[in-house]
């Protein structure tokens, strides 16, 4: 009985007509997605304008080494006396650049390859074999192998993360294309002589967008994790770049006396990944109910 009362109460304070989009309702219905979106916007703001407000992330001050968090150094200082707060703000920039760039590049590549696979049987056989092989290699190892053979740099890190992420997108896009191709309306369009390009533009690509966006969100989260892991292992962006992974790696030797050099950037990394994942879950529930049922 209590439940039905609650439901009628809910029904009464819903705005009328209920079809119109209301931000307040959307927020109340999806508190976790809202949380993720707000958090991510904040982090993007920090990454975009933060560096102009904080000091110099490279400024060494041996007098102030390993100071705990205080009013002067919000997040403490590292073994060179550098301000961890300043470095963490710069680190947000690195993480988000890597996450967003990897997501964008792998989506573009994955979409192209996925469409090709879904359309041309012969391409499909070869490309999917290669994708299976690439997916058999754990992504961090694949990135590591590539980095062993090149000079360190942000660009090579991005490439090294893109390669293992592409197959995930290809599989999603290909599955959508194959299921759409089997639809009667597409078969009749083909039979009616509609050109391939037109078919792709009008029917296929729009249908792949929703799952593509959802998958891209997860790729973004995973790319940020891999970048941090690679930097932590010493195989990521060059040591002098203040990325979260690098800050943590440099704090390792002093962890027992200065845990803040690891825990604070670590918490930021976890929060950022959490925000992107929550957003992805929300998008998935909204855009891709088929997938939502599976997870």
């Amino acid at each position: 009985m209590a439940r039905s009362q609650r439901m009628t109460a809910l029904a009464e304070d819903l705005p009328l007509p209920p079809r119109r989009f209301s931000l307040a309702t959307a927020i109340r219905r999806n508190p976790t997605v809202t949380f993720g979106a707000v958090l991510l916007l904040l982090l993007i703001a920090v990454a975009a304008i933060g560096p102009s407000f904080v000091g110099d992330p490279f400024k060494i001050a041996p007098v102030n080494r390993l100071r705990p968090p205080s009013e002067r150094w919000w997040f403490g200082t590292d073994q060179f006396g550098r301000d961890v707060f300043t470095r963490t703000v710069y680190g947000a920039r690195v993480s988000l650049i890597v996450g967003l760039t990897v997501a964008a590049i792998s989506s573009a590549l994955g979409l192209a390859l996925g469409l090709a696979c879904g359309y041309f049987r012969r391409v499909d056989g070869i490309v999917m074999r290669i994708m299976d092989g690439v997916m058999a290699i754990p992504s961090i190892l694949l990135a590591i192998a590539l980095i062993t053979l090149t000079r360190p740099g942000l660009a090579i890190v991005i490439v090294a993360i893109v390669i293992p992420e592409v197959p995930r997108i290809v599989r999603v896009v290909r599955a959508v294309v194959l299921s759409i191709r089997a639809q009667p309306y597409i078969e009749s369009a083909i039979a009616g002589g509609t050109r391939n390009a037109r078919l792709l533009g009008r029917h296929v690509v729009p249908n792949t967008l929703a799952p593509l966006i959802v998958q891209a969100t997860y790729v973004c989260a995973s790319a940020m994790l891999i970048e941090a892991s690679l930097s932590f292992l010493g195989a990521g962006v060059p040591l002098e770049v203040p990325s979260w992974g690098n800050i943590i790696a440099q704090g390792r030797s002093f962890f027992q006396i200065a845990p803040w050099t690891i825990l604070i950037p670590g918490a930021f990394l976890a929060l950022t990944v959490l925000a992107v994942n929550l957003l992805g879950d929300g998008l998935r529930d909204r855009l891709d109910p088929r997938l939502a049922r599976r997870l």
Partner: protein
Amino acid sequence: MSAILEVRDLATQFDTLDGVVRAVDGVSFDLARGETLGIVGESGCGKSVTALSILRLIPPETGRICGGSIRFAGEELTTLPEEAMKRLRGHRISMIFQEPMTSLNPVLTVGTQIAENVVRHTGASKKAARERACEMLDLVRIADPRRRLDEYPHQLSGGMRQRVMIAMALSCDPQVLIADEPTTALDVTIQAQILDLMVDLKEKTGTAIVLITHDLGVIAETAQRVVVMYAGRKVEEAPVEALFDDPQHPYTRGLMRAIPRLDVDVEEGGRRPRLQEIPGLVPRLTQPIVGCAFAPRCELATGRCRATAPPVVDIGGGHTVACWETVR
């Protein structure tokens, strides 16, 4: 005649996004030992919910029995603790469902699914339960039962799966069998076989049956007594002959006119009389219904019908009906 099952003023509700649905709204009937009672009505009239309510299988997240009483062999089921209810289900009251395709577990063998019921309720050993399962498959006339025991549902035809469901339901000699549209999903020829089997088994075992269906033809072949439901309420109840010979409620009469008949003379020009449909739609159950639920679709409806629900009146011979206009 002592009733094994007495249902009084049963009311069951569901929460939906559109509000509370009164799926069953004050239904009463008795089931005598060894009797077959048909419950008939259109889809959505509450007949399946009535069946699930008796076994208390209404999903607790969305629905609940909110009134009335169900007495089985003198015991009140609506307040029985869940553990006692579990000992009853599949043992003294069992149920078979409409979809033989999806009602059997696809990853367990037929033998396991029958035998586990026997083990659960009789405490028999696994080996004895398997023997019993084999016996039951034989009883429902499945050829080569010993081999079938080790098969999975996907290896059986629809009719065979429904036989397995019946074997499972009867494996512990229940006093009541509730059959919810047991033949609806089957081919016509298979339907007849399954109905024959049920009638036959009832003779042998003496199990009382509640047969739920939308098909008056099925009722005519199997039931002794019929309850007609509309919009969650009982509108008429009668022995089967009385109902077919002299239907009282306008809704029952409408249902009769909607049955295709082979025994009516072909009219001139070689055409059978047109089947008549009942005009209008089943009312939404989210609003309380004032007056007779059928009034909006009834050609006899008056102001009184729309204002006050008609009481159930006994017109003799166990024939009761809820209508202001046909019962004077």
